[in-house]
């Protein structure tokens, strides 16, 4: 594969849009970082709980925080599409 192949397959943006789109993530960084840390903490609790009370707390913490991470990623995908659409409109406007 090469730039020519990607172009032929229609995968690349139109050339006028190259370099015009924001490449920073739309995922909320601090919340996802915290939730991921909670997921890791959940795993630690599962281990340190030795199969007793704290293990079950760890499992619940893991489930909740992992689900939160997924929700944040899902929201980021929606936001990313919105941003791309807005950027495309801006490029069109600046051209015209």
């Amino acid at each position, binding site marked *: *594969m090469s730039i*020519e192949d990607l172009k032929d397959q229609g995968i690349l*943006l139109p050339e006028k849009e190259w370099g015009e789109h924001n490449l920073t*993530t739309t995922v909320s960084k601090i919340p996802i970082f915290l939730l*991921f840390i909670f997921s890791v903490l959940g795993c630690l609790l599962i*281990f340190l709980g030795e199969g007793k009370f704290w*293990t079950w707390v760890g*499992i619940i913490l*893991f489930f909740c925080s992992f689900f939160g991470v997924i929700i944040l990623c899902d929201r980021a*995908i929606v936001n990313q599409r919105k941003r791309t659409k807005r950027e495309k409109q801006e490029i069109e406007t600046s051209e015209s």
Partner: protein
Amino acid sequence: MAKETHTELSRDLGLFTITMVGVGAMIGAGIFVLTGIAAGTAGPALILAFAANGLVTFLTALAYAELGSAIPEAGGGYLWVKEGLPGPNAFLAGWMSWFAHAVAGSLYALGFSSYLGFMLKEMGVVTLAGIPIEAAIFQKGLAVVIALIFVAINFKGVSETGLAGNIVTMAKIIIIGIFIGSGLYAMFNEPASWEKFTPFAPEGFAGVLSAMGLTYIAFEGYEIIVQAGEEVKDPKRNIPRAVFWSLAIVIPIYILVAITAIGAIDTGTSQATWQWLGEYKELGLAEAARQFMPFGTTLLLIGGILSTMSALNATTFSSTRVSFAMGRDRNLPDFFAEINEKTKTPYLALICSGGLIIFMALAVPIEDVAAAADVMFLLLFLQVNMAIITIRRKYGDKLDYGFLIPFFPVVPIVAIILMIGIAVFMFHFSPIAWYFVIGWISTGFVIYYTYARKRKRMKSASPVVLQQSMPIEKERYRIMIPVANPSTSKRLIDFAAMIARTKGGELVLVHVITVPKQAPLRVGQQFIKRVRDDVLDEAVEIAENHDLPVSSVMRIARKPAKGIIDEVEERDIDMIVMGWKGSSKHSEAILGSNVDKILRDADCDIAILRGDNFGEAENILLPVAFPQSAKLMLDIGKVFEEEQGSKINICHVIPPKINNNKEAKEERLESLYEVINEDKNEESEAPKRTINVQVSKSVVSQIVRLSKESDIVVLGAAEEGWFRKMVAGSRTEQIARLVKGNLILVKPRRGSIKSGLQDVIEFFRSKEPESNE
């Protein structure tokens, strides 16, 4: 080159369907076959192994979400590695993917035979065709039979798709759902169940890591989501969402299966439940279901049989597809890409994949088969995580992303480290698996360097449109002269002829017809006659006057450098002699974009001439700096010495600081003397060559000063990395620009290992997208 028509599949998979495809792929044979084995390895900490695997796999899922949304093509991981990593990586990605899918097929074939054998036993069948059902030979034999059946099914071109596929997936989910539900019900009715989770990690953290590695294969279903990318509606939105939601569904299910499998059963002895599950290995889940689930064993066996069959079908298909694609890409012999006329299936790729599945099923125990597949998938995903970094760097601003990884590139780097850790740790669990993996990868390297690389180069080489009197004596020293302008070609040919005479070599004249990107390459053909008449014939005439074997070649390419490099690779050229005007049009180029590229990519000695008069040189200055280039510089100097009686002045300029350090000075000079007197032994009559040591604070100005007393300056470089670095901003560039007279820049051939390494470094350094043309 005519543009090929791009065919695209109809996009009819919505978010729910594609999520279910991923869920179906994950809740499958992996969970049915591996839960018992993994429980025996980790104990109740299997719960932790599943949770931690969820986190590790989530990091790679982020990469799949980003790349799957930006490049939603059927190739998936293999395609991205091909796009994002240099050298043998693309080949190895396909090679490993082939093995991983085939070995996963072996695992499912063995799992199927265990489940079917167990079912027959439940039905009271003790022997079949005289073979006891419990005998190992029965299990292996049945695995071979089922593998052959699915080879035959795939040969017919029948695949489990559409409604049948969905029914199988739903049946698996329902069976697992009933298992979890009835297990939790049993646990809540028996308070002692909750005590079965202590001791939690009887095999310590090592057991957890082993179970993680062992069950990793059960998490790789999101690969199927991106492989179906071409059929997904609004792929930029739905692919990444399906990747995440399938994990959100599957990971809790795995954890709940582990909880119920360990908590809900009663071994009836003092034996811990995890040990009991471990003893039953792949049948652990079916045995567990017998205790607390209505029609448990029957349902689990049906689920297991359906899962292993659909997984075996899928892996036979995918391993065949990968090897077929590799054959088509010329990475494997052409027969891998051969299609049966009647069934339209790649039957030879299928036979080879089937052979691999059967071999692994016969040769290795089931847990080692699983471990081998896991290590391969880990290494494959590791490559994907590496590829995402380079793809963002080279194509990021040109791609339309549906999702972007947060904390880039930290996340893929962490994923790489974690996967290396798990993969390495798998050696602790199954050394045999690693031996197979190492053997497979080593074989892959050998095939790549001895076979695939050459074929790939030939495929992407610029077309040769004219070739005259090419000699066939490979032993001769072959010097290539790119000719573009008859007025400047003569000095290049005369110079090359001097070298060819002293080395008993031959000349290859090359002209590259360049065609801009706006036009197809075939447009270049209309210039063949004119170029031959105006440029090549005249050059051939000049060359033939030297009484040396001469041949000429004409190629068509987008850039002259591409044609020249292709010629070097195809004809095993030993040296390129080319001209340089002395300036570059592009600010980012050093000697000019074409010369730079040739210096970087052509694997042969290179001599670049600037100036008009190389015919009557009395004094030749060789400012040697490094032993690597000193040899070639001296060779050039000796040519002038022999042909024109020139006097060679070998000099080495050292700063006062080094001059004052006796040890450092001697060390430097010793390595240079070793090279320049390489051909002078004890008996040699000729006097040894000496180096004129000059001490100066400025190496550049001293060489420029010395150059004024010389007719030709031969300037060299040790190696490309150094050369480019040096040329880019310091000495060689400054010297080359300040020396006013005739100048020859030389660069010696790189070693093949160094050459490969240099290519890799250059690939990662460069932000430029890769180009075929």
